């Protein structure tokens, strides 16, 4: 199997919508039309080399600043305090950093939602999972997590060896995988092993000796804990001769990653991951081989590789369409985009993402988020289905209350109960008016088609459509009622419609 180019004239709005989901975070039908209007090449170039917006700021947002007092001074001060006070101060510091990382999650979500460089953010998310580090337990500072995030953004489209060279200088990673403490003579193998197993080659392409030898080469790649900057500790580095993947020399970390990226297993391992992420699950070996060949041909640079993939017929083939399970980030941001609403003030997004299993800056382990079908289990699926409801109400899933008529505490009517906990007033009616579309949404069928188009950009079965139309014709008492834009229950009905579209198996896929 090989990649063949898609004839440019076949690039239409549904295909542009598909591209927008995979290379970004979805959008409305109008967004897809805009992208389609650029033509196939224009759309791909817009994604790969966006001329809009300057790169992100290089000074940290307020929430990612280091504490003013550096680590050494803080520790000295801690030591000078009596026991009880010391613990209190340490807890306070931890709480501050916890608050900062929560704010940083919001900062990134805002950026993903509003960016005009969606692929750059999507790749930043890809690298965050591929080169996974977690705030929890060892790092516990927002600043290095932000720095790592900016690093991923800067090298998002770049060459693999450059990415690895940046990675072995990333303070968050070096602390997370214990390399910051690795010393000549008794190296710590944690980072060296994962560097090959999870970040570049995959199990089976290196020996235990290669782990030990590369760990020696990486000794001294450390961190200044006061500034959280990379520091090469010459005294801790083992300058001796190493035999790594069959090559002998007095290798350092840079040599190791160069040897790794030239290994044929690296291009296969990485392209398999790219195809899983962008194309379809379990890509077959011949396709991976072909992709790896292309990746090597473009010197392991991601931008030209993706240009090839996004221009291929395979990428838009029936097999690829709706073949991937949306990650929680894509699911939730896609919903916000389709609803044309900003991130709610409440912790709805952050709590929902945590519950759906994609807590930003807290990947579950060094393997990142497994993705695909692993996004789905009984804990998270109904959170995903209910997300529309949380969003419509602007309520965090943690604070959402079930209405239960049997409970003595809830003598109130369902309407009062639901309205009382609604903190966001998403008014579809006002929105439609602002878009000047009210005349086009005057029958239930038109309304269903409009929202299906904005949320899915692909049609639903006639049976599902019939059900949704019937729902729009159901009145508050369960009887039949006519439907028109002017009805004062328009908002209520559309909210129910949108929640059901999002509660379908269809909506879980893109």
């Amino acid at each position, binding site marked *: 199997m090989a990649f063949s180019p898609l004839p440019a004239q076949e690039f239409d709005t549904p295909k542009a919508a598909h591209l927008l989901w995979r290379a970004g975070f979805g959008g409305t039908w109008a967004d897809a039309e805009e992208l389609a209007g650029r033509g196939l090449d224009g759309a791909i170039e817009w994604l790969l080399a966006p001329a809009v917006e300057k790169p992100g700021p290089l000074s940290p947002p307020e929430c990612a600043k280091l504490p003013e007092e550096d680590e050494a001074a803080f520790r000295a001060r801690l030591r000078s305090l009596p026991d009880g006070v010391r613990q209190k101060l340490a807890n306070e510091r931890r709480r501050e950093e916890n608050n900062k990382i929560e704010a940083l999650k919001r900062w990134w979500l805002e950026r993903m939602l509003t960016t005009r460089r969606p692929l750059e953010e999507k790749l930043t998310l890809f690298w965050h999972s591929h080169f996974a580090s977690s705030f929890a337990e060892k790092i516990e500072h927002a600043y290095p997590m932000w720095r790592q995030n900016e690093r991923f953004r800067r090298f998002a489209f770049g060459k693999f060896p450059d990415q690895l060279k940046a990675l072995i200088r990333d303070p968050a990673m070096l602390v997370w995988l214990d390399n910051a403490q*690795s010393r000549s003579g008794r190296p710590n193998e944690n980072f060296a092993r994962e560097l090959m197993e999870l970040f570049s080659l995959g199990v089976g392409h290196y020996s235990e000796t290669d782990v030990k030898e590369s760990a020696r080469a990486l000794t001294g790649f450390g961190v200044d804990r006061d500034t959280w900057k990379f520091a090469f500790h010459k005294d801790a580095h083992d300058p001796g001769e190493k035999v790594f993947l069959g090559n002998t020399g007095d290798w350092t970390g840079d040599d190791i990653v160069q040897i790794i990226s030239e290994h044929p297993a690296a291009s296969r391992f990485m392209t398999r991951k790219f195809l899983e992420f962008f194309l379809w699950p379990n890509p077959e070996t011949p396709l991976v081989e072909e992709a790896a060949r292309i990746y090597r041909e473009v010197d392991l640079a991601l931008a030209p590789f993706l240009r090839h993939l996004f221009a291929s017929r395979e990428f838009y083939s029936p097999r690829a369409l709706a073949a991937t399970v949306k990650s929680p980030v894509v699911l939730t941001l896609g919903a916000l985009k389709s609803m044309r609403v900003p991130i709610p003030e409440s912790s709805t997004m952050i709590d929902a993402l945590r519950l759906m299993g994609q807590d930003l800056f807290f990947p579950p382990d060094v393997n990142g988020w497994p993705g695909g079908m692993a996004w789905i289990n009984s804990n998270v699926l109904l959170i995903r289905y209910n997300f529309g409801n949380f969003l419509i109400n602007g309520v965090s899933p*943690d604070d959402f209350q079930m209405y239960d008529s049997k409970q003595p505490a809830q003598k109130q009517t369902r309407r009062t109960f639901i309205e009382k906990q609604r903190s966001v007033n998403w008014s579809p009616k006002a929105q439609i008016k602002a878009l000047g579309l009210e005349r086009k949404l005057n029958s239930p069928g038109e309304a269903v088609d409009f929202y299906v188009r904005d949320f899915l950009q692909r049609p639903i079965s006639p049976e599902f459509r019939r059900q949704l139309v019937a729902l729009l014709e*159901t009145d508050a008492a369960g009887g039949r009622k006519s439907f028109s834009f002017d009805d004062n229950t328009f908002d209520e009905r559309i909210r129910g419609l949108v929640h059901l579209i999002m509660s379908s198996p*269809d909506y879980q896929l893109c």
Partner: protein
Amino acid sequence: MQYFQTRREFLASSLKGAGLLAASAFVPAFLARTAAAAGADKDATVLVVLQLSGGNDGLNTVVPFTDDLYFKARPTIALNGNGLLKINDQIALNAALKPLKNEFDQGRFAIIQNTGYPNPNRSHFRAMEIWHTGVNDQLETNGWLGRYFDAQCSGADPRGQQGEIGVSLGKVMPQSFRNRSNVALSLDDPETFQWNASGETVALAKAQEAIFEKLNKPGMTAPMTPLAIESKTMGTLGGINGGSPETADFLRHTAMNAIAAGDRIRALLGKGKNRAEYPYSRLGRELSMISKLIAGDFPTRVYYASQGGFDTHAGQVGSHARLLDDMSRSLAAFMADLRSHKASQRVLVLAFSEFGRRVAENGSGGTDHGAAAPMFLFGDSVKGGIHGGPPDLKNLLDGDLRHQTDFRQVYAAVLEKWLKTDSAKVLKGNYSPVDVLA
């Protein structure tokens, strides 16, 4: 009577071990029937698997405290004297295992030394996969417990009367549970096992639920996007298949399993009482929930809990002790709780980790990935004590302990003696069961 209604309140209350939950008035009727039909076999044996994730340091858990080679290999982190719980002249338990010492003395705690498998893998993920699938020499995606589920419910409705649904506590489904029939549940918070209609009147909510049921009823193939369709607003869309039928079916089964089990689980966790004090930890919470489900005769024979953090590459003495302390107090509480509910005789706990750690410490006061390590069994029916000789520190393989007992011999004992199943079929090979169960 007090009702807890939001997740936040549920989590707060269940951590205190006093959760009381309200049942939803809006569980779709066809699902409620399924849940009600699942009857429990009150005498069936129950297996609880505890995964110690990250690679537990066996040598500092079950300590060869008189072996000079141990102290030589670990000049700064070897444990000596201080509070070690001496078992015999060669072996002592880490002081943090104190809450379990009584279980050991009563013969309800078995330690199987030096477990592992040929050509040990030192990757967390590959090693975990080997322990989960029980297969180390060929590709296998289903788990050993998943294959057990499949063997139990072949031909029957997997969610029916036999109640062979495995329940895994926590946010993710372990690979051990992966199976053909898609029957396992992962359970973190049963409050999430329901669909909330958004309609502002009961009538509207009911209409929405009816559509939701149709959309998510297993076996239905219709609502997924068809191959090609004429759409007035999108033009003709050809060849859009909206995902494979298997994916849709998996989604529908998963939703239905959760909703069907949700009411029952909420009720049991709500009215059930823990009769022991669990530590305020994730593992404590998971085991306290399992205890309530077992005491309430929830029809499940296999539960799965896990504790993370055992990947102690640096500064491990303190962190390892804290992990073992949490594990010991949680397990001791769990067993006392079950005894108090007169359920202990039908529960067996199996604890494992994906590997032990390197015999020699590294330069960061920690240990890197190793190989063989002890497994633990707890319960009234185990043959307590130490099984197998002390670790052989003279005869290492690449600096790691060699295994003496294949971990699948322990699985085989559990399958044959406890779950009364042909282990060869489930394990895809013949492993002679170790003699650890009465």
